[in-house]
């Protein structure tokens, strides 16, 4: 069976401490080709040593623009410290650069998801229906029911955001496989919350359970490259015991729909 895949959670171009070279774009393109993945929503990763997101975003726009199928996913930051452009300008710049989504990193960039801190940025994103990625490790530790092993479970913060901004598409990434008990009711309660499979959504028949309970619309195929072995998320989807139209929606249809909804 042929299923078109777009990797919603991958990237290139960053560098981690101890590494001599940044992660080359060609390495990402190589696995996309090997796994017959048509395109990617790409971030700057590894993110560990990146501090200047305006420059990093500009590099991302340029490199993605040079290759068919690559869609940038830049990082946006509340400009309340005066170090980043105003909210609408950041959003305009992202969309002019071809962004298909943006990433917020509250914990890493030192801001909490509190309305009085980030409302103008979130409102600007909601007005344009720009999908927003939140990674588990980047959220503040609003609650920690699972302890240090999983570095906190800040789903309450994501829920607050989803409830306050119902027209803002939110995409959760990097959540531990053990969170199904919380993830499913979150996605059922807030239909603007989505999740990407990459990485670490490894639970037995997890896709099947979500599709049975919620339908496929809120699930996006993603690999978690460069952390995870990308093929794991391909085999997970291709062997899942779900209908072919659900597989197609998860593989690329849902991301296409979200990106078409952006007011450019």
């Amino acid at each position, binding site marked *: *069976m042929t299923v078109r895949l777009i990797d919603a959670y991958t990237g290139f171009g960053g560098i981690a401490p101890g590494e001599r070279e940044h992660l080359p774009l060609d390495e990402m393109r190589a696995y996309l080709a090997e796994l017959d993945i048509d395109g990617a929503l790409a971030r700057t990763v590894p993110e560990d040593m990146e501090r200047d997101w305006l420059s990093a975003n500009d590099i991302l726009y340029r490199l993605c623009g040079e290759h068919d199928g690559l869609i940038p996913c830049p990082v946006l930051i509340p400009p309340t410290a005066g170090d980043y452009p105003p909210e609408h300008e950041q959003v305009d710049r992202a969309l002019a650069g071809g962004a298909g989504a943006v990433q917020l990193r509250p914990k890493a960039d030192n801001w909490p998801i509190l309305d009085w801190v980030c409302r103008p940025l979130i409102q600007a994103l909601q007005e344009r229906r720009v999908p927003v990625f939140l990674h588990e490790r980047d959220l503040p530790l609003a609650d920690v029911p699972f302890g240090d092993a999983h570095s906190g479970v800040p789903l309450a913060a994501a829920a607050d955001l989803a409830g306050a901004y119902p027209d803002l598409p939110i995409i959760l990434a990097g959540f531990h496989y053990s969170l199904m008990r919380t993830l499913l009711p979150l996605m059922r309660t807030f239909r603007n919350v989505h999740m990407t499979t990459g990485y*670490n959504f*490894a639970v037995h028949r997890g896709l099947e359970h979500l599709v049975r309970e919620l339908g496929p619309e809120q699930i996006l195929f993603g690999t978690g490259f460069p*952390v*995870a072995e990308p*093929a794991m998320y391909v085999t*997970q989807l*291709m*062997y899942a015991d779900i209908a072919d139209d659900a597989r197609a929606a998860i593989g690329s249809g849902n991301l296409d729909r979200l990106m078409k909804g952006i007011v450019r």
Partner: protein
Amino acid sequence: MNTLLARARRGEPLDDIGIIDVHGHLGRIGCSAPCAAPDEMIDEMDRLGIESVIVSHSRCISTRPDEGNVQVLQAMRAHPGRILGYVIVHPRSAEWVEGQMTRYVERGFTGLKLHNANGFPYTDDAYRPALAIANERHMPVLLHTWGQPEVLAECRTLAERYPDATLLLAHAGVANEPGYIELAKNAPNVMLDVAVSRGWRGLVQRLVEAVGAHRVIWGSDTFLLGQAHQLGKVLGAGISDEDKVKILSGNARRVLDRVNARRRQS
């Protein structure tokens, strides 16, 4: 292209290479994983093309492991040759451990599974009778590990003490990758089981390059982790199809052949 990876990309069952999963579970795990029935396990295996799975019961990290052994035995009898069993024990006493191991080995179990979540090291004296039986019968012993140097040291002690048992180190490379590689290089009866949820990119390839494909073995940790998900780390690894078949099938078959050969001798 008709490589194993290309076939998986199309969702085709890989039912012609005799895939054996050496790390499965029955029972509730707790991490939001479903408690599937053995019949569902077989359905999943059929869809992927997996020939057989060796399971232990999740009660190996809980009370009353004997009840878990009973459930595994029932699954083995319902699906002979498809579901094989590891005996689980709690080190309450050497006599009790020996009784459980003897009872279930006589009923056709294939190996022994130990988990250290109970607070006891693998070198605990109460485990000795079960390990001695596994050694005498050339059985696999699946050991939960998470990279801790002290646990790998215990595994090394067991490898030296029980040279005819095959020690399968679960979750190899999840952390302390060099520790696993060093142990496998120094202990010929150790194999590295790559069941890990995160599936670090390149891990399988690095392990194969370090210790050889014949020392790496595929386990999924199903019903906790998905077999479909865990297959991908081997199929996507930068190694030859020949080495992938060793990891997914040939190495486990070699382990089981030793058990069966010993059974025939006795």
